[in-house]
């Protein structure tokens, strides 16, 4: 089976006068047609950097200094500006962190959705409005709300609208960067269920980025865990649930108390823990990859 998205040895550097910091460091991962791949890790680990590199959205001082990104065999990093404009949204769409604040506050929801169809599909206004109604129904919001301005919707509704807009042109890949972080658990669950349902109906693949391991385990088929720009473990969700091999993955999983079972003391990652010399992924079980490396705990000094 060929992959829909292939990321190979991707290196992204943040360059300043004095030095270059690797935001993503030799990252290799692929996503199959209709697969949900999760990228987990903490702030600064490079998960959003990878997503932005795939979308070619990185801006100075970030630059892609190595590797390849292929979408259905095409080299994304070499696409012309025109091809890129067409590819984004139509074939790959992205929902950003706190995307619910990305709606234009002075424009009605309906006009913002219709814009996608008039701009990308050259539809008439009337046809675009009909499509907007269909999209609202898809995410179960009353189409009457198309007349509303963003501030008249709740945070959860705004997030639904943004997700619906991302799905508008039926992309084959949807990138979701922390799509529910700013939302309550109750709304979060509703939105994730909606994403799952949309995925079942429309069949797109998902690159799902979050720091919340319990969400990730619930939604993803496969999970990659990132640390300091590198993927330290890559495995099917079920395999991680049963037994994560890398100490960092274990710490991430251990950091979440459970809502059931005995109440026992948990420890996260000790302050000052560092993983260094992270090697390339090695297959330790079928489909389960772990990167070798060293772990140190610095007890003195903090900088």
């Amino acid at each position, binding site marked *: 089976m060929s992959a829909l998205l292939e990321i190979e040895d991707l290196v992204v550097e943040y360059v300043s006068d004095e030095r270059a910091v690797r935001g993503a460091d030799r990252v290799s991962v692929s996503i199959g047609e209709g697969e949900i791949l999760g990228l987990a890790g*903490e702030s600064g680990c490079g998960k959003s950097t990878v997503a932005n590199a795939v979308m070619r959205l990185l801006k100075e001082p970030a630059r892609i200094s190595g590797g390849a990104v292929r979408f259905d065999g095409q080299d994304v990093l070499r696409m012309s500006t025109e091809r890129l404009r067409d590819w984004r949204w139509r074939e790959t769409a992205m929902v950003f962190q706190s995307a619910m604040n990305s709606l234009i506050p002075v424009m009605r929801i309906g006009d913002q959705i219709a814009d996608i169809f008039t701009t990308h599909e050259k539809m008439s206004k009337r046809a675009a409005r009909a499509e907007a109604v269909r999209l609202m129904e898809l995410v179960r919001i009353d189409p009457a709300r198309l007349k509303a301005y963003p501030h008249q919707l709740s945070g959860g509704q705004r997030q639904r609208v943004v997700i619906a807009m991302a799905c508008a042109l039926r992309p084959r890949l949807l990138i979701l960067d922390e799509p529910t972080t700013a939302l309550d658990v109750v709304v979060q669950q509703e939105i994730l269920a909606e994403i799952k349902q949309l995925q079942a109906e429309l069949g797109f693949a998902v690159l799902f980025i979050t720091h919340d391991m319990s*969400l990730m385990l619930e939604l993803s088929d496969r999970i990659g865990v990132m640390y300091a720009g590198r993927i330290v473990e890559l495995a099917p969700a079920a395999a991680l649930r049963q037994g994560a091999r890398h100490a960092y993955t274990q710490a991430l999983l251990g950091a979440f108390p459970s*809502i059931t079972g005995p*109440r026992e003391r948990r420890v996260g990652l000790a302050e000052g823990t560092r993983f260094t010399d992270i090697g390339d992924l090695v297959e330790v079980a079928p489909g389960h990859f772990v990167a070798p490396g060293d772990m140190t705990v610095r*007890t*003195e000094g903090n900088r």
Partner: protein
Amino acid sequence: MSTQEKTPAVRIRGLDKTFAHGGFRARRKVRALNAVDLDIGRGEIVALVGESGSGKSTLARCIARLESPDSGSMEVLGEDVLRTQRRRATKAYRSDVQMVFQDPFGSLNPTQRIEHVLARSLHLHGKARPDIRAQLVELIESVGLPAEVLASFPHELSGGQRQRIAIARVLAVEPQVILADEPTSMLDVSVRIGVLNLLARLRDERGIAILYVTHDLASARYLADRIVVMNQGTLVEGGESLALLDAPRHPYTQMLVGAVPDPERTTPFDPDERRRYRTQIAAWAEAPSERVTIDDASGHWVWKPKEAAHV
């Protein structure tokens, strides 16, 4: 002393708070707190859980005296504070009751070294000892950070370290009550548990009473001795953490528990069931209700409609 030990650290009865919002002509009132009764024992951690907008932060801010309730009574460490400190809290109150906020990035002055931040709290509240350097080292070590951190500026520290500094600053004034409003929600996951463990240690070693405000039920279950659940300004259920979450009786608590991400869950999310919950929660909120004890041993109670024969 013996009577002091028996009284809870915080004892709230019938607390009401209404906010008015909207335009000049179409002014609407929102009941943020509705006849709230709550005790927090000395050396006890009580988690206050609910969705955003449920009123949980308002309750914490009322206890911190950052908001004034409309009516009700509030005894803190045995003193009826709404009566004796009517207009504003005394300095002594501010040292007894301290608040830890959600954002460890915004709560520290970026231009001051950590030692200055902490020393200032000690001086302001008259807690500084002649050997202040040793006192600062003790303080920083009590929150699990090395003494070197004292010379740092806030931007040189991680979020988890900064939240520990915020807690150290709170400890500097030797409080008896700490109000922690979502103290870990902005922290990276691997250090969150460390901050929770630190709060548990403060309870165990210093007998500090803690109100832990959160929407994260799993962390509430992990940390708190008791949980109280708030929906639209009303406390709807309470009891010992495990007893409450293992068998929630109020539809609102049941919905919250069902929404916690759980990889072990086998049944998929059902939007119809969610709608049924919402309908039932609304019906319960409308009906004249009473507080019913479910189980004496665990102190489990629920606020439920009087007519309902079964929960």
